C-alpha cells in the first residue's frame, strides 16, 4: 500500500538543482557514473543538463552486495557499462537515495576494479540519514528522516521521474 507520509518534491526539478550544485566544480576530467536504476536515470539527466561531452557510465552493484549470502543474486542484473578509462579521472557517483551507505560502498569497490580514479565524489537527490558506514554525500538536494519501515524509491513513468513512499510491514 502506498501512503504519502511526507509531501514529495518534484524529482525532475531536483535533478536541475543537483546539476546547479555540480556545475561550478566541473573539470574536463569529471565523469558521471550512475548506480542502477535510479542513479542511472539521474546521471542521464545530469549529462544533458550539464552538457557533458561523454555519456555517463552505469554501475550495477549486484555482484558487490554484502547481502548476497542471504538474498542471492538479483533476478535482473544489468551489465555495468563504463566505456572510458577511469584512471586519473574525477568520478562523481550518482544515486537516488543515500541511506545505509552500503550501496555506495559496493559501487566504490566495483569502480576501483576498473582502475584508480583521481577522486570520487557522491551526488544524491535524497539523503535519508541513518548511515551504517562512514559515508557522506558531496552534493545533495533533499535531506529527510524516515523510519526504517518506510521505503523511498524513485520511479520512472514514461520520461518522468517521481518519488514513491511505501510502508513496509
Amino acid at each position, binding site marked *: 500500500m502506498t501512503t504519502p507520509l511526507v509531501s514529495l518534491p518534484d524529482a525532475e526539478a531536483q535533478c536541475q538543482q543537483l546539476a546547479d550544485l555540480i556545475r561550478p566544480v566541473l573539470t574536463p576530467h569529471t565523469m558521471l557514473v550512475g548506480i542502477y536504476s535510479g542513479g542511472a536515470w539521474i546521471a542521464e539527466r545530469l549529462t544533458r543538463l550539464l552538457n557533458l561531452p561523454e555519456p555517463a557510465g552505469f554501475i*550495477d552493484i*549486484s*555482484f*558487490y552486495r554484502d547481502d*548476497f549470502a542471504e*538474498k*542471492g*543474486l538479483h*533476478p*535482473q*542484473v*544489468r*551489465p*555495468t*557499462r563504463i566505456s572510458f578509462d577511469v584512471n586519473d579521472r574525477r568520478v562523481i557517483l550518482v544515486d537516488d537515495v543515500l541511506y545505509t551507505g552500503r550501496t555506495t560502498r559496493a559501487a566504490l*569497490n*566495483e569502480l*576501483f*576494479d*576498473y*582502475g584508480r580514479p583521481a577522486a570520487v565524489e557522491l551526488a544524491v537527490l535524497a539523503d535519508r540519514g541513518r548511515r551504517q558506514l562512514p559515508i557522506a554525500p558531496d552534493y545533495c538536494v533533499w535531506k529527510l528522516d524516515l523510519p526504517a519501515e518506510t521505503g523511498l524509491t524513485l520511479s520512472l513513468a514514461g520520461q518522468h521521474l517521481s518519488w514513491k513512499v511505501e510502508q513496509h510491514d
Partner: protein
Amino acid sequence: MTNPQLNVHGELTHLLATEGLPREILIHILDTAATFVGITDREVKKIPLLRGKSVFNLFFENSTRTRTTFEIAAKRLSADVINLDITRSSTAKGETLLDTIDNLCSMHADMFVVRHAMSGAPYLIAEHLKRMGKHDIHVVNAGDGRHAHPTQGLLDMYTIRHFKKDFEPLTVAVVGDILHSRVARSDIHALKTLGVAELRAVGPKTLLPSEFSHLGMRVFHNLEEGLKDCDVIIMLRLQNERMNGALLPSVSEYFGHYGLSPEKLAYAKPDAIVMHPGPINRGVEIASEVADGQQAVILDQVTFGIAVRMAVMSILAGN
C-alpha cells in the same frame, strides 16, 4: 516427481541437466552470463560474489577444457578452487563416491563440479546431500556418461543467442555421433525449451537411432539434405574409440559422408554459424577450412563458456 535441480521455492539449487529446466531459468542464466562477459576487459578481472566459498572440481573422467573453464570461472568469482585428481587418489584405493563426498563436505565444500563416466553420478551426489540435510551445498554436472553436459548446452545456447538474437525462427542441425553424445542431449533439450522453429539430427543410422524422431527432431542420414537452409550447425566430436567397433567403416569414409567440408557447408544458409564443443578432429568430422573459416564460432563458444559457468555458479550459490 519433484525436480531434483530445484529447491522448495522452485529456484535452481543444482545444475544436473538442461532437461526439465523451465524456460525462465534458462533465460535467467543466459542474461546473467551476459553481464559477466565484460569482466575480462576490466583492470581487475574478478568480482567478489563467491569470496570465501570453496568449489571442488571432481573430475572422475579426464577433461582439460571443461575443468579449466570451470576453474577460471570460479576464480573470477573469487572462490577458492580445489582440483582433485580423483582417478589417482581415494577412488583408486577403493573409497566409494559418496564416502569421498562426505569427506569433502567435512572440508567445508560449498560446491561440487562433477564429471563422471557413469550417467547419473551427479544426481546420486545431489540426492545424497539432500538426504544428509546439506541444502547449502550445490552440485554442477560437468558431464555424466552419455546423459548430460548442461553447461556445454547452456554455452551453446548463449552462443546461438549472441549471433542469431532470437531462437524462434531458427533451423538448427545437430550433426554426428548423437547416440553417444551428452552434449547433443543437453543441446536438444535446451533448444526444445527455447523453441527453435526446426530441430534436425543428422548422422549415420548406427549413431542416430530412430528414437530421436520421438524427441520432435527431423532425422536425416544425408548431410546435404540435413544442412539445407540451416541457421546453426552443431558438429559433434566423433570419439575415436567408436571407430574400432562395428559402428563405422573408416575415418575417410566417415568424413566423405558426414564431415563438414566447405562444399557441404554451402548447403546451409550463407550466414549459418558452425559450432563444435571441442576438441575438434580435423579431417574426421570437420575440415580445417571450415574449422578456421569465417562461419566457425568454436573459439567464441570457449570464451562464452567461462561467462556461462560464472552465471551458473553465482545463481546456485545465491539460492
